[in-house]
């Protein structure tokens, strides 16, 4: 045993020793994505332990949900993952619809796909830009926000809001798209497509970026599953799971007829539906680079889905349908549904006693689970790796603290 | 004569009278060197912090260096008297180099001491006490 330990190459000792230091990273720190507080136990530049402290953004959202009708709670879901509010709306709406066994119209279904995927693009753009920021390069952040602004413009045109949309709602969507919107959306996609190459040049394939992310914060698939990670974080570790394909039928039915390939490394390669940059030699599956790369692939994937949904949506001639009444009674019972949000699998659970107001509301946050793995990933890394790892998890505190 | 020294009697004791207008000689440097040297020695004798002792050593070496340079300086050379010439400067150079090396070695010793005793108080370093 002793022999074994001696030969363990992972254990390193230095002649020079310093004392441990407890450092607070956050809740006010440039790279903690909001009000996350990480307590680092450092020894020199080495981080020996990381403990995330959360709760700085707690707003009793679930409790509020138990005092509002289902549709009234929609704006609160906006404020969970405020970077992908559309997807939050969708998750809650579908959960309620599952309990009500409500079927939205075909037109609303395709529109929901369109909006949700656009929301995914917007969210991933923030994730990508902010990740560059975490690694000390500022420009990609602005490039990302430039494009995100265009998406927000489109959303604003559709629903009137730029951040908290409450657009998708129980029973459909609050309004149909304005005329000409699709045209603008297509224009945006056409214009956006070549820009992704720029992103790859600036970040994905940048030598320094690769050095900073490849082989950093490696998360094994087992670890990811154990911690309940989901979304790009899970797929970055090579686990082939996507709720849009593997979820419950009420959710997967939404994507019926859509062709997409889950962005995950299978058999040593990522989907080859588009021209992607090659995986650098240093990168190992499950590291920061792969998590980042999966997000970049999902942007392209979402663009494909948006294009498909535009075609389908325009082909639908029927009415969009009206959302349910604000005070619509929910049948007694409970329902739980997980949807694939940009950050991961977002689950909503509600128990109804038959009234319009749910008896219990609960949200399962993907970022919460993703953040929990931080202390595993950051053990023994350098301080500079902490933002790189936390950034690669792409967490949103609004969703975690609720 | 200038404004600053105009008021001072030029025949006062050389140490003070000539300070501003008399040219600087070797002895001036030697005084500085002596002060540096003494400071270093006192520092070594006083500091319980091993790093402080190191700094004392640096001061001592530096004081010696001042003397070397002074003796070798072409500007401070007295009329007709011999000086060390470049030799003084070269010795000063070697002292500087060796002092840097010495600092590295001494630091290594200090660090080992710190690793073993969890302190840099050299009063604790009495393992060889008789």
């Amino acid at each position, binding site marked *: 045993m002793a022999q074994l330990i001696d030969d363990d190459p992972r254990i390193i000792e230095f002649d020079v020793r310093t004392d441990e230091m407890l450092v607070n990273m956050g809740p006010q*720190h440039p790279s903690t994505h909001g009000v996350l507080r990480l307590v680092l136990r450092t020894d020199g530049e080495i981080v020996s332990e990381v403990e995330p402290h959360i709760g700085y953004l707690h707003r009793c959202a679930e409790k509020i949900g138990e005092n509002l009708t289902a549709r009234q709670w929609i704006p609160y879901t906006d404020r969970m993952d405020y970077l992908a509010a559309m997807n939050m709306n969708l998750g809650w709406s579908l959960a309620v619809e599952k309990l009500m066994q409500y079927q939205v119209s075909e037109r609303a279904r395709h529109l929901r796909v369109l909006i949700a995927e656009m929301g995914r693009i917007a969210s991933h753009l923030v994730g990508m830009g902010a990740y560059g920021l975490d690694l000390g390069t500022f420009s990609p952040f602005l490039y990302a926000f430039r494009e995100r602004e265009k998406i927000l413009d489109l959303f604003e045109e559709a629903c009137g809001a730029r951040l908290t949309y409450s657009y998708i709602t129980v029973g459909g969507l609050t309004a149909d798209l304005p005329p000409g919107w699709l045209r603008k959306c297509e224009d945006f996609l056409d214009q956006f497509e070549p820009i992704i190459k720029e992103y790859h040049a600036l970040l994905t394939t940048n030598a320094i970026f690769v050095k900073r992310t490849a082989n950093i914060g490696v998360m094994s698939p087992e670890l990811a599953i154990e911690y309940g990670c989901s979304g790009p974080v899970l797929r970055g570790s090579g686990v082939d799971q996507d709720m849009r394909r593997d979820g419950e039928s009420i959710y997967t039915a939404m994507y019926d007829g859509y062709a997409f390939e889950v962005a995950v490394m299978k058999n040593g390669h990522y989907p080859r539906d588009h021209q992607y940059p090659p995986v650098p030699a240093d990168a190992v599956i499950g590291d920061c680079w792969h998590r980042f790369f999966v997000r970049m692939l999902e942007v392209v994937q979402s663009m494909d889905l948006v294009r498909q949904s535009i075609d389908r949506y325009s082909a639908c001639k029927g009415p969009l349908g009206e959302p349910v009444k604000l005070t619509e009674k929910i049948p007694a019972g409970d329902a739980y549904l997980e949807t694939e949000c940009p950050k991961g699998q977002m689950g909503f659970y509600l128990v109804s006693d038959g009234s319009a107001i749910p008896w219990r509301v609960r949200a399962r946050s993907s970022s919460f689970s993703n953040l929990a793995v931080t202390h595993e990933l950051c053990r023994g890394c350098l301080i*500079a790796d902490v933002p790189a790892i936390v950034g690669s998890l792409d967490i949103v505190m609004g969703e975690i603290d609720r | 004569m200038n404004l600053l020294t105009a008021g001072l009697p030029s025949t006062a004791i050389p140490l003070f009278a000539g300070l501003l207008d008399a040219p600087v000689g070797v002895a001036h440097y030697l005084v500085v060197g002596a002060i540096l040297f003494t400071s270093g020695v006192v520092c070594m004798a006083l500091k319980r912090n091993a790093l402080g002792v190191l700094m004392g050593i640096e001061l001592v070496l530096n004081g010696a260096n001042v003397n070397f340079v002074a003796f070798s300086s072409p500007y401070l050379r007295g009329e007709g008297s011999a000086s060390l010439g470049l030799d003084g400067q070269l010795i000063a150079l070697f002292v500087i180099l060796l002092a840097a090396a010495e600092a590295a070695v001494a630091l290594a010793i200090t660090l080992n001491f710190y690793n073993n005793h969890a302190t840099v108080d050299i009063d604790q370093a009495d393992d060889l006490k008789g």
Partner: protein
Amino acid sequence: MADFLINTVGLPEWLAWTITALVAAALILNVIAGGALVFIWAERKIAARIQDRLGPTRTGGRFGWLQSLADGIKLLAKEDLMPEGADGMLFRLAPYISFCASFCAFIALPFAFDFVGQRLNVGVFFVVAVLGLEVFGVILAGYASASKWSLFGSMREAAQVVSYEVPLGMCVVVPVMLAGSMDLVTIAEKQSGWLSSWYLFHDPFTFVIFWVYVTCAVASVNRAPFDLAEAESELVAGFHTEYSGLRWSFFFMAEYGSMFLVSALAAVLFLGGWNGPIPVATLLGLSEGTGDTANYFVRLIGCGNLLLKATLGVLLMMWVRWTLPRLRIDQVMTTCLKYCTPIAAAMFAGAMLWQLAFPGGVVRGISRPAGEIREGWLEGPGGLSAGRGAVGAKPTAIPSAATGTPVVPTLESSIESRDVVKVGS
């Protein structure tokens, strides 16, 4: 200028020298402070353009050209905060030390042939040594701030700068070797002539080592991607986390001053100094003997040349900063120890061998006979033929002040021979 004051105005000599020195100091100070303002503004605009935005637009009417000044005034007016538990004296002193080091290094930097604060025969050495002191203020700031982030920042800075001084020194030694002098003025003078006489194009090794120098210079002044000491995504703001107001701006000025300094040093060492790519002055027939006015004019052009090159260097650093992510500290060290140092050493050896193989230079074609160059050490002040012409037939000049009035001691000069001193230019 001192002579002018003494001889013409009739001021007492000590006063004349004081005034001369103060003028020189003020000039350099202005270069740094003013330069910092300009560069900060330029950086904002450049960064904005790189990032697809406009940058400051309103202050000062157009282009926001007064924005830096406005910010400076704002900084002056800001409350000077000092954290509880900070080491007050060191906390206050640290920015000045940084700034002083940056400023002091300018003393030996020649802007044109005689436009130099103090021509030192160990000029290169002096500049590098003093520049290295800048980090001292940073360390003190980091320690004195009583903040862990600051401490981290200063530790990184210390390690980084100390490490990068090694390859930087090696890079700097190459032009010194080629010129046979550590005097910056001499080094720049040796590169006079066409573009091809710049040391950058002297041989392949110098070309490579120039880029090593650029890397090391960027690292030693803590600019992206080597800005570990203030890595905002990790260490909040590094060593100056706790600083505000004027003290903070001193750090800023020191940083921009250093940037300018290393760029200017690069220009002097590798890019011909104040010599343009085309020897316009020589082509026009302007030379040392043409006359004072023309001479002065030529030097002004040279000064502009140098400032332009240095500015280009600064702009290059900005461009890099707004493009690349930041390296991690161990990667920075790797870059230094595993790449820069060996490459610099190899290039140094290569340049040496090149000198041995082609003493006259290859690119330059027709050049001085080898013997003359080999005996170069005999020239210059203090050599065997001390006082008999450092550059060409010119007498050795010991410049008196930044204004460029060399005092030339001749062999005949003695204690009483102050009057014999010849006034140059």
